[in-house]
């Protein structure tokens, strides 16, 4: 309980991950859904860092760097899409973002 092992980190990241997932599932606001995705990514990062520390392997950190890069890209493009969509539909309600069904 007092000694912190990678196990704890993994549990933390899992919890955070699920929080993110819940956010994605529950919220209607697309922006917030995006933020939840960021949370999920962070959860993953935590896991990677922890394991890289335990395994004394830098690969984990490297991947984190890449994840961050991808996250940045994703945020940029995703938010761009949101702006464009909002400009046309005057809404960010995910329920109304279904023009591509069928």
């Amino acid at each position, binding site marked *: 309980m*007092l000694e*912190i092992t*990678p*196990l*704890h*980190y*993994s549990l933390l990241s*899992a*919890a*955070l991950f*699920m*929080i*993110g997932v*819940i*956010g994605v*599932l*529950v*919220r*209607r*606001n697309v*922006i*917030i859904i995006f*933020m*939840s995705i*960021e*949370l999920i990514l*962070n959860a993953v*990062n*935590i896991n990677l*860092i*922890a394991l*890289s*520390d*335990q*395994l*004394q392997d*830098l690969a984990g*950190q*490297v991947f*984190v*760097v890449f994840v*961050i*890069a*991808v*996250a*940045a*890209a994703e*945020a*940029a*493009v995703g*938010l*761009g899409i*949101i*702006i*464009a969509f*909002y400009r046309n539909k005057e*809404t*960010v309600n*995910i*329920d109304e973002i279904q023009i591509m069904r069928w």
Partner: protein
Amino acid sequence: MAEAIVFWTLAVLILGLGIMVISARSAVHSVLFLVVNFLLVAVLYVMLNAEFVAVIQVLVYAGGIVVLYLFVVMLVSLKKAPERYADPRRVAWTGTLLAGAVLLEVVAIVVASSGGGEPAATEGALGAADTPFAECGAGPLVSCNTEQLGWVLYTSYLIPFEVASMLLLVAMIGAIVLAKRHL
């Protein structure tokens, strides 16, 4: 002992902030919670001897991405939050419950698999054996972490690194194209 205290406070704070993020009414608030969340995660990284990543976390996430979110939130001026719309087709808490279930299962798996976690230091040697940077010695990755990371990035991960840069470039252009009213 100190480490444990720090970890637990951090853990509680991170999870709490996470919940705040996904539950805040207004988007602005959740953005703010998100910033704090990221900062705390950065601290967590420092604890795990990943200074460089921690710095990146602060600079890119807290400094860049979140500001981006903030702008978007400002741009998207909603008359009423989407949550106000009654939506009979979907039940919020089914998702929550399911997520919770999954979480429990994972916890169970993790706990079971670890079985009274032995100290990480034991595997230190085998990790160090095939690490490409000999000059840092086989010791823990406390010292010259950034240097080693840079070394690895620019040698064995060079191609993915370049690809990532391309990805960012493309994303930048894409974002501009998307956000611009009319080209």
